[in-house]
């Protein structure tokens, strides 16, 4: 079976307002198979939205091409676009119009009409459980409800492929749960192919058949989750939260040398949550060890002796976060 999506060396450079160039996506090539959930996992600014915008025909690639179901997005955009449902990161709805009016309008833009359109609208409204609010204006909806309508618009024409760009950003846990379940439903019940982007390791882990990890515009790892975690070996990961006290650059290496079984220690300094905010994430030490539970007491002992205040301790099995850390030396931040 031919892949649903094939990208060939997709590149995108933007010109900043000061005239300098940013390479947001640097030669990305990958395939998405029919019927799978493919996640693009990467921190903010990694190039997820830019990549997905090129595949969906919103942005013209600086170089390269993508095919959807065999149709080139640059050469046969109309045919390619017919196969795709688009669920952007923003709530791309007219706030003045009701949920139903939005669905009817965008349905017409996908060539639906008449009874068929009305039937599909009823169907997706039932699917997102908002049939009772369909006549209300979008601007009266809660964030979670808007997200659900945003998704419904992308499903109206029953596309073979659906893109979702960070669909859970800024919503409460309950609605997030619903959306994740919906994504799995799309694959399992409707045999849709899903391209899902997120910066949350847990989401990628829960949903994906395959994951592409993207950073600085490049795919740095690609494959099934098991394959990826094996790349970083069988090591456990010990996360130690420190206070705000700065750690000298040489300290992680000194620490590692004192404790047998620890293969590597990374330091992540404290970081302000937002500009001007008084809140910040604490500084962290991340240690990799074959047997985390044996190394842990020794680690704590040495840190105490050196006068560091330990705020939290966590031991983790190998996961995608570890893969990202191992590959980039940085953490995927929330």
């Amino acid at each position: 079976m031919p892949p649903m999506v094939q990208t060939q060396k997709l590149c995108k450079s933007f010109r900043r307002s000061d005239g300098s160039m940013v390479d947001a996506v640097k030669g990305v090539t990958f395939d998405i198979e029919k019927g799978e959930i493919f996640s693009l996992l990467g921190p903010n600014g990694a190039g997820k939205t830019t990549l997905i915008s090129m595949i969906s025909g919103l942005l013209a690639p600086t170089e390269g091409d993508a095919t959807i179901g065999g149709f080139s997005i640059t050469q046969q955009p109309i045919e390619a676009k017919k196969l795709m449902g688009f669920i952007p990161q923003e709530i791309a709805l007219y706030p003045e119009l009701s949920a139903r009016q939005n669905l009817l309008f965008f349905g017409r833009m996908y060539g639906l009409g008449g009874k068929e359109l009305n039937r599909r609208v009823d169907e997706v409204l039932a699917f997102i459980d908002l049939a009772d609010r369909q006549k209300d204006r979008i601007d009266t909806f809660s964030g979670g409800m808007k997200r659900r309508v945003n998704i419904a618009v992308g499903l109206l024409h029953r596309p073979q492929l659906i893109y979702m760009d960070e669909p859970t950003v800024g919503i409460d846990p309950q609605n997030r749960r619903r959306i994740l379940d919906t994504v799995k439903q799309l694959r399992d019940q409707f045999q849709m192919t899903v391209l899902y982007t997120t910066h949350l390791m847990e989401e990628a882990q829960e949903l994906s058949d395959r994951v592409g990890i993207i950073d600085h515009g490049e795919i740095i790892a690609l494959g099934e989750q098991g394959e990826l975690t094996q790349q970083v070996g069988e090591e456990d990961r010990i996360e130690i939260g420190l206070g705000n006290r700065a750690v000298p650059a040489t300290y992680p290496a000194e620490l590692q040398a004192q404790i047998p079984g620890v293969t590597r220690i990374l330091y992540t300094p404290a970081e302000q949550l937002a500009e001007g905010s008084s809140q910040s994430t604490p500084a962290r030490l991340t240690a990799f060890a074959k047997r985390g539970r044996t190394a842990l007491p020794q680690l704590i002992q040495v840190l105490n002796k050196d006068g560091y205040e330990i705020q939290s301790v966590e031991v983790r099995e190998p996961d995608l976060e570890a893969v990202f850390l191992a590959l980039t030396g940085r953490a995927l931040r929330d």
Partner: protein
Amino acid sequence: MKKIWHIAAKELQIVLRDRNLVLIMFLTPIVLATIMGFAFGGVGDSASSSFQHMPVVLVNLDTGFDLQQQIGVTETNLSLNDLTFNVDGAPTSVGELLQANTDITDTALNADSANFNFGNQLASILAATPLTDSNGLTSTTAFNLDELTCPLLTENGQENQQFAFAGTLDDLFDVDEMASAEAARAAVDRGDYVAAVIIAPGFSNQMMPTFSVAGDGGETTSGPAGEIEVYGSSGSPISALIVRSVVEGVVNQFTRISVALGATVDSAVNILLRNVSLANFDLTNFNLADLNISTQTLNTITGTLQTLDSSVLDPLGCLLTPGASNLHVNQQPLDQTQTLDAFSYIMIVLGSAQAVFFALFTGIFGMNSIYEEKRQWTLQRLIASPTPPRYLLLGKLIGNLLVVAFQISVLLLAFTVIASLVRGAPTFIYGRNIPAFLLVVFAIALFSSGLGVLVVGLFKTPEQVQFFGPMISATLGALGGSFGFRLPPAVGRISPIYWGVSALEKLGAGESGLALDVGVLLAIGVVLFVVGAILFRRRMTI
């Protein structure tokens, strides 16, 4: 293709569901115009008389027009009196015809000169003063030429309405005459008069068509410039407007008649001269009696002249008969002006200005909403749909046009309803000619929307549009008379608002000369739209 319409319809749907937009687009202009209408027009017992007996000052400098001189036979003894026409069976000389009607001739009409004076005509029409002719007949009967008939009149069977017009202008204007244009303008500036009507010396000369006389080799000489100036008081813009439209109306009739008259005189004189030259006469000392002309030649001449049907002089008859259908056309608006109360009349003017002015805003801000669509990602969703980019562009453009046209229609209908309510009877202040109404609305909408497309296409950011857009609208508004004062037409014409308001006023007055206004708006609108669309295309990408 259907998608274009769906996008356009969506634009309108959004506007109607946006409470703020509805307030700005519809309620504000309606309230503004109504308040201003009450403030200027006043409502109450005195309202209906506000536009009666408007003081107007008249300066008639017209030196008249010497027909004989113009046809180039002055050096000869040939007098107009020698031209005889068979009028209703009886040979009648032109001199005789003219002499019987001093109202169109200079006071001292003699057999050798036929001095037409259109200025006197206009003056007497405006002043509604009966001209007394040499036979002591007063205006109504003086105008009534027994010998000459106006076929237009007879055909329409409107003979009985011939003098309907005599009383109407009398009620509308109180006319004083002055000898100096300067003094008249000063009097208007002082506020003594709502307007001065100044008839330039060359008015008759300009009104007369040029004719060429075969054999004489000469074109007619061109005389002094012959404009009529209506100098309106800025304190009474509406009254000045009424004066202007009345004068324009009358002069239009004159023009039509003079063209017909010119053709007649031209052919009559040419026929005469052709016959004269056939007989190899020397015109220098031409005297019919002294010349030794064979009977045959004479017969040829007189014969040709005699065969001239009296109908060739019909246009002259129409000119001399004020109730004739030519002038009658102008009758309706004059009547209407009178029956409309002050409030309605003000609503025509203020309403038009407000409607066009606010349409400009909608045109610009409607197009500026493309940035909002980009920000909320609905534009991206549209681009991601299988819709060709040109459909998206056309949908947006047509949508804006639709919104603006809808706004103008609603405003004008609202003004009609308000004027009717105030007056207590249905009052169609923008007339009842639905196709003409729609055409004018479309022309204004095309222009306003086109301006919006160009402005948003031209300026680089939404903030620039928000800054410059209102400045552009306000400037055009001020030039075009949206703020209650009117600049001279020469300046106002720069602004398409002038043409829009002018077209709407004509609709209201039931006048027919809309073609120019509508044509100007459509032409500018198309240019703005096309150039704007080319620039605007880049706003449709992300």
